[in-house]
């Protein structure tokens, strides 16, 4: 039997980016907040320190910072005619685990989305006509977010200042600025910190891209370019380019994370209580099924608890947000055969994978001198920054030399035609390791009625609950988009002086066996209409108004960019409404 605990005002399910950010907003209003984290507690000192943190095998290959999929996996199939099987080891995407969540092991790539992204369907129809979208794929189910860029801008600004994002503005209040990204959505002001130093691979890319008339700019980074004190009074240091960022925690207080930018303040607040190693099983509803009464969770010793709460915030990784809704019976599950239902609908991923550019042996790239977000890139092919009228697809990708490391188990490129092992392989690795540049293509993945999340009928987690089932393949639209851009990027590789260029681009079928992106999105999306969205524009569940679902599960379709900063802005946006509207009069913030 579950032990019933003393009621609190708010529970967050997960203590990563959204869980810690939302909790801080609410404890400052005087509410009592409990944060339930599935993983262990951890902090920069002593847990993230050198030398142990610089261990490629433990963190990159064995994935020590990731969700333990021996306990909770995800099942996967490419289409609904197949039987989904468990992803027995993470490869394609890497949900984080432990205090701070995936926002500890992220790379710090800190973009805003574009104006058109938030009104995507409206924008595409206005620019290309209503028939165009149907021609791109009748299965596509893109839609508007029901929040605009202008509404989010102050929240983007606030979140960037919390992190201390280092970059160069390309567009301040509509005025294009030299050195920044001219395609950037208008910002109210410059980045909090100047851009990072440009490594050699970035300088070579810049020269090549410029020679073709593109617009290179320094990637905005939450690995800081200089010491910085954030608005909470927390001090960060300058990144030292150690080359152990993505999949790693930062030992230097140089990467913005909950540990460096939020938690030291939150954990001191007497209104906050953190409980780690606590697995939430479900949100409990009253007998009307329109009001949450709290959550049921199991602690590390296997004891079950019921934690009553007035307000429940689902703040886990996007896939886990969707699973929590499904396990709790909140919202109607999506049915791809009828197109009805909403939970699990519009699950989207991201298109990635650019070319490998093999350079002359005289050019020492030194890829191991790198931060997680020290790229030089162009946005000429991002989103709808180029005319798609005659292309037969929507969407786009940013392109850049964004090398985050030279860690050799993961990075030992050999040109096409070289055997996969043996002496010739070994000599090619020695020849090319320090003379190769990876270019990233990274972009949109559109929503399709064929791609969705639901509960698996067969496979269970360590607590006996169904695993989440993912049914996904890239829509043909995404393949056409990625392959079109792949040709353009090969030209950039040539302009960089590449001797051999291995072409990039996304192919079908999507496979779970190769790392691509941890930007899983959608499945519990926001919108204007309860028949096509799970949550309203304030991320509040239509069916259970005292539950909010925060994070990228809210995205109706995925954007060009790495999504963390947009998640932060959306969280501030939702919390603004919770604090200023919901708490004054709990109930639906939007009447459909």
């Amino acid at each position: 039997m579950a032990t019933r605990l003393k009621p609190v005002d708010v529970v967050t399910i997960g203590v990563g980016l959204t869980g810690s950010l939302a909790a801080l907003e609410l404890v400052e209003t005087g509410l009592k907040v409990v944060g339930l984290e599935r993983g262990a507690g951890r902090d920069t000192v002593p847990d993230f320190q050198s030398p142990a943190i610089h261990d490629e095998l433990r963190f990159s290959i064995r994935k020590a910072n990731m969700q333990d999929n021996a306990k909770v996996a995800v099942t996967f199939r490419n289409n609904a005619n197949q039987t989904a099987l468990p992803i027995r080891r993470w490869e394609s995407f890497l949900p984080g685990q432990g205090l701070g969540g995936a926002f500890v092991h992220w790379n710090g790539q800190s973009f805003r989305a574009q104006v058109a992204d938030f009104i995507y369907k409206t924008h595409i129809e206005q620019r290309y006509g209503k028939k165009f979208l149907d021609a791109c794929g009748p299965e596509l189910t893109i839609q508007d977010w029901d929040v605009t860029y202008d509404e989010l801008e102050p929240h983007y600004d606030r979140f960037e200042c919390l992190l201390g994002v280092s970059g160069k503005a390309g567009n301040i209040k509509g005025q294009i600025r030299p050195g920044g990204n001219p395609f950037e959505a208008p910002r109210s002001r410059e980045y909090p910190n100047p851009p990072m130093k440009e490594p050699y691979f970035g300088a070579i890319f810049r020269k090549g891209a410029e020679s073709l008339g593109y617009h290179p700019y320094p990637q905005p980074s939450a690995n800081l370019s200089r010491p910085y004190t954030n608005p909470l009074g927390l001090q960060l240091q300058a990144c030292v380019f150690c080359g152990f960022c993505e999949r790693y925690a930062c030992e230097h207080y140089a990467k913005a994370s909950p540990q460096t930018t939020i938690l030291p303040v939150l954990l001191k607040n007497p209104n906050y209580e953190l409980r780690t190693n606590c697995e939430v099983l479900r949100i409990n509803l009253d007998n009307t099924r329109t009001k949450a009464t709290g959550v049921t969770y199991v602690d590390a010793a296997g004891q079950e608890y019921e934690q009553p709460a007035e307000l429940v915030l689902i703040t886990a990784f996007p896939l886990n947000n969707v699973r929590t809704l499904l396990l709790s019976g909140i919202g109607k599950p999506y049915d791809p055969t009828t197109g009805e239902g909403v939970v699990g609908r519009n699950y989207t991923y991201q298109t990635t994978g650019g070319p490998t550019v093999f350079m002359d042996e005289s050019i020492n790239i030194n890829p191991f001198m790198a931060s997680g977000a020290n790229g030089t890139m162009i946005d000429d092919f991002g989103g709808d920054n180029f005319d798609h009228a005659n292309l037969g697809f929507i969407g786009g990708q940013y392109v850049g030399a964004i090398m985050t490391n030279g860690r050799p188990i993961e990075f030992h490129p050999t040109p096409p035609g070289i055997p996969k092992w043996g002496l010739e392989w070994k000599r090619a690795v020695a020849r090319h390791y320090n003379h190769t540049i990876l270019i990233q293509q990274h972009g949109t993945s559109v929503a399709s009625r064929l791609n969705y999340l639901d509960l698996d009928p067969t496979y269970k987690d360590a607590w006996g609950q169904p695993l989440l089932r993912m049914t996904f393949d890239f829509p043909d639209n995404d393949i056409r988009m990625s392959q079109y851009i792949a040709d353009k990027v090969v030209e950039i590789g040539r302009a960089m002086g590449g001797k051999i260029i291995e072409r990039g681009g996304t192919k079908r079928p999507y496979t779970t066996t190769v790392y691509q992106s941890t930007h899983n999105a959608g499945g519990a999306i926001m919108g204007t209409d309860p028949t096509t969205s799970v949550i309203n524009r304030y991320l509040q569940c239509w069916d259970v108004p005292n539950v909010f679902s925060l994070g990228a599960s809210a995205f109706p379709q995925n954007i060009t960019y790495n999504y963390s900063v947009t998640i932060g802005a959306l969280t501030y946006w939702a919390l603004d409404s919770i604090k200023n509207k919901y708490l004054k009069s709990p109930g639906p913030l939007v009447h459909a």
Partner: protein
Amino acid sequence: MIKTISAAVLTAGLPLESAKTDEHAAIAATTPSIGAAAPPTTYLFFNPEEAAFIEAAVARLIPADDQWPGALEAAVPNYMDKQLAGAWGAGQRLYRSGPWQQGTPSQGYQLPFTPAELFHTALAAINKELAQASTPFAKMSADQQDAYLRSLEAGGKNLGGVPSDEFFAALWAFTVEGFFSDPVYGGNRDMVGWRMIGFPGAYASYYDLVDQHGIKIDRPPMSLAEDAHGHMHADPGIPAYLPPPKQ
């Protein structure tokens, strides 16, 4: 600086006892900085027949040449042995509930074997097959060994329930890990994998170097196990997984 040693010497097909001695001598010849102090491998996981196959196989997967030692000299068999004897071999972070069925390539690994079970099962089948044919792998010529490894890689064989391409993929993944992972895990002896490519290891900062474009870094690499005095505390018996950080 590095003496020439031909691949043939390393793959001449010696029985295990003499192979160990030969490996010891080969390392002394190829990696002067660790010299005669390099210990012979004490196998915790592989039985002698399995170890003989592994030693001979990794010597073909990453062979020694006149420039750099190969996987055998880098102690990759020792790395593999300790990984398979430890938590990773036992299925750490592997979702292990059935039902089991063959999936599509995009669904990834779907066998019920842990890594340890996979290696024992496949190696037993390989050694049985080759013993019946009177040609233990370690006694084949280098060309024959390469051909046999390619036949495993191609995936036609059933190794006691393990498809041979699955076994080859695991063998190759462990070989690359053992060649390039930190020496603290028992492979990459004398950091030869890192020296070969110029990876400096676990240095903490390049702040002052990152904008000196194209410079040649010629510092010796540094291991996690190295202390401030440059002494190495590598322990070949280190578990495959470090305990999680204290709370």
